[in-house]
């Protein structure tokens, strides 16, 4: 099927309109590599914006009492840190990886819908601007938490409307990105590139794209109901007029739980490329990896209310959502075991991407285990809305998604820039981030178990020491990320060894058959995959 639908660029047209120069190259970009680069640069910038917000709130939390920020501003920091990291940084970064790597990995010349690709990127700066500007409107930004629970959201000022509008725009961008990825993966594979030969990154993104298509409209519905409740007199969430605040939570988490997997499945794909490459051994259990990914995706739609154990669900609801959630640990475990078996009796080397890969395994498994622990409803009720939850999801989102992206970034940077990155700086970045990450987030488990609630601008003095540790770790972690910027700038400027087409001797896949840096147009004639 794929062989007949591969797009052949007619002779003479391929290079006739080659790279436009200057700002036009970026504003009118239709090339998947240029758009991928823009996605990655944008998400890195947003990582720093969200990171600065995190450091501001950690500054306030360094010691008990209110020293720097009043609670209403503090709540804006926590809320916007979450929204910006999720919608501005992690999701766009993975779409950037997909743009760059999926066509190269399946032997396609570009993404299926080049102009829609351009549009879906350029919506992002608009959404990000709305998020950022909302701090400066009367009443400030949304301060109701990234989950935007009604009816607190109904009390917010115009900053909330900025958030709602931004979420709509970023959601539209995600939907277009997802459509593009699905069509590209299904229709534009090179001859012989059957589904079960695709690199796992393409598989995980294909499944992720379906998740996005299913859930982004649900989020749009939830925030639209907030909007009409706020301004147009509806009462979806107002009990006095027949609404129900818990309805919001059901709708939100029907989006919110699969969203967690949107942010981790592509990471699984990256890790499934990096670990085999540096173990010099094929990925163990490829088919079971595909099935496990699909199983996780399906289960992710069936477990949303485990975020709501304290809302007072009926006993059957609590038991069902507890059992279903615990089941997710099984396909996730299969993935971990497969990666470990891939390393077993390989010929391992520990370049920076592999360090991030192993580092990912280590911290992600901690986040996975705390996930299993909070799946158990009675324990969840004890730690719900405490710092234990903050620790849990940062172990999954920072140590899972972000560390996997770093593994991928170092792994493919030679392909993107044509220059080997600075290995010493890369390793420094890894060790510095890994240590400071754990100093920041590990003590939060203790805080949560001891009962410190999240989203608190001030806390009982008994919690002081671990909060101090977390703040010191957070600043260390934040500043460690500047090393990455330095590594990338050096590589982009060509300061380093020129990279060969396949800089990693264990790496497999079509992306390593093209020169480094990857030429502007690749696979204009589809490669033959045996």
């Amino acid at each position, binding site marked *: 099927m794929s062989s007949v639908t591969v797009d052949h660029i007619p002779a003479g047209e391929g290079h006739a309109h080659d790279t436009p120069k200057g700002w036009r190259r970026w504003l009118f970009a239709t090339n998947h590599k240029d758009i991928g680069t823009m996605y990655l640069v944008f998400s890195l910038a947003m990582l720093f914006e969200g990171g600065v917000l995190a450091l501001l709130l950690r500054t306030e939390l360094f010691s008990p009492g209110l020293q720097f920020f009043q609670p209403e501003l503090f709540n804006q920091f926590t809320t916007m840190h979450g929204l910006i990291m999720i919608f501005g940084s992690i999701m766009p970064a993975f779409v950037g990886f997909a743009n760059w790597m999926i066509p190269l990995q399946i032997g396609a010349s570009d993404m299926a819908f080049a102009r829609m690709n351009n549009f879906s990127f350029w919506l992002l700066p608009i959404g990000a601007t709305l998020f950022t500007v909302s701090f400066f409107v009367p009443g400030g930004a949304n301060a109701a938490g990234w989950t935007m629970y009604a009816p607190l959201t109904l009390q917010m000022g115009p900053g909330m409307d900025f958030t709602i509008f931004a979420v709509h725009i970023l959601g539209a961008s995600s939907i277009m990105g997802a459509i593009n990825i699905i069509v590209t993966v299904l229709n534009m594979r090179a001859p012989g590139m059957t589904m079960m030969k695709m690199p796992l990154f393409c598989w995980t993104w294909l499944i992720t794209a379906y998740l996005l298509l299913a859930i982004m409209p649900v989020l749009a519905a939830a925030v639209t109901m907030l909007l009409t409740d706020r301004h147009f007199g509806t009462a979806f969430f107002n009990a006095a007029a027949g609404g129900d605040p818990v309805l919001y939570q059901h709708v939100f988490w029907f989006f919110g739980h699969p969203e967690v997997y949107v942010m981790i499945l592509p990471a699984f794909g990256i890790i499934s490329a990096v670990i085999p490459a540096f173990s010099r051994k094929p990925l163990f259990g490829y088919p079971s990896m595909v099935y496990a990914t699909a199983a996780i995706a399906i289960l992710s739609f069936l477990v949303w209310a485990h975020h709501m154990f304290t809302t007072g669900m009926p006993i059957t609801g609590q038991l069902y959502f507890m059992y279903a959630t615990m089941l997710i640990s099984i396909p996730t475990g299969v993935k971990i075991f497969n990666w470990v078996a891939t390393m077993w009796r390989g010929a391992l080397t520990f370049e920076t991407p592999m360090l991030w890969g192993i580092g990912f395994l280590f911290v992600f498994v901690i986040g996975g285990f705390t996930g299993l622990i909070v799946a158990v409803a009675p324990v969840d009720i004890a730690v719900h809305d405490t710092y234990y939850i903050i620790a849990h999801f940062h172990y999954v989102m920072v140590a899972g998604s972000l560390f996997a992206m770093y593994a991928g970034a170092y792994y493919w940077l030679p392909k993107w820039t044509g220059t080997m990155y600075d290995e010493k700086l890369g390793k420094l970045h890894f060790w510095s981030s890994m240590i400071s990450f754990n100093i920041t987030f590990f003590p939060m488990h203790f805080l949560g178990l001891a009962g410190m609630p999240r989203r608190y601008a001030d806390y009982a003095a008994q919690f002081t020491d671990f909060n101090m540790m977390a703040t010191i770790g957070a*600043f260390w972690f934040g500043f460690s990320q500047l090393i990455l910027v330095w590594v990338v700038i050096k590589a982009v400027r060509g300061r380093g060894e020129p990279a060969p087409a396949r800089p990693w001797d264990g790496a497999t896949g079509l992306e390593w058959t093209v020169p480094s840096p990857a030429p502007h147009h690749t696979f204009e004639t589809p490669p033959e995959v045996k």
Partner: protein
Amino acid sequence: MKTLRGVLGAGALALWSGLACAQVQDMPGGPRVNQLNLTGGVTEIARSIQWLHWMLLIVCAVIFIGVFGTVIYSIIMHRRSRHPVPAKFHEHLGVEIAWTVVPFIIVVGMALPATRTVVAMKDTTNADLTVKVTGYQWKWGYEYVDGPAQGVKFLSTLATPRAQIEGKEPRGPYYLMEVDQPLVVPVNKKVRIVLTSNDVIHAWMVPDFGVKQDAMPGFLRDTWFRAEQTGTFRGQCAELCGKDHAFMPIVVKVVEQAEYDQWAATQVSALAGAGDDAGKVWESADLVASGEKVYASHCVACHQANGQGMPPVFPALDGSEAYVLAPMKEQILTVLNGHPGTAMAAFRDQLNNTEIASVITYTRNAWSNAGKGEDPVVQPSDVLALR
């Protein structure tokens, strides 16, 4: 720039707080200094949650050690310098089935005892005493539905002075976890807590009881505890409820039955004595004086001590043409019924006619409002007429 300032500030604070911290002691009924794990608390539920957590933690730790033992063995023994020729295998049906089935069995083993606890936590039947708990921005309201204290109701607000929060005074031993009037319950009695909220979602959490339950505006939810020891137990609001989310703690005093009965009798007789005489006509100065106190405990968080509020979310009362300087009717109705769609709560059930009349009179005579507008004095009878 802001970040840099934060770093410097944090560094300077480290020295100062390092000294302050040395004196912090464990808080009885609250968190211990650097507490590492869940508390076993004083109820069977809290103990079984703690047991479940230990069980899960140990199982997870054993698996973790197994998995990362293997990884570390690979890292040492299968590095290229020692093991230059990689093996070729990439599947093994038996192993793959094993590591799917064995975790399934482990998960079922974890779920069984958890199920028992879920069932026990949800069983709110046969309570000895029922208390209705209402969440307000930002305080808790308690009302005894049955038992010797039936009909007793009061609000419970943070007792930590603002000066401690702002660092102008040394922090007390119960910093942020003390209230003016705690909930009082008898020991060894099953207490059913029925929750609702007046505005947004709050959550009533007391770690020592193993209880955390959201309070939903417009709906009732329930939970229960049976404290097995006397003492004072402390918790905090656990669901983001706006700016003073961190400042609405929960304090429960568990006492012997005899002491409880005595407490209930005093409360009930106080209830009978504290009549709200709506017919009384007050002097303006007296209303202003008592109104200032009401303002300080119920209004100041949003509308601020200087009456400037925090626009646009919390409007100013100073110079407010629409309400405070207008005829009294709109203002009385707003205080009684709240303003739907905003943070302005309905105070109809929180304050009596005299309190509402005095706080309104206070706002009409405070700041730059004095001498302006109509109806400078509002009497309890005016409030009663619109209630």
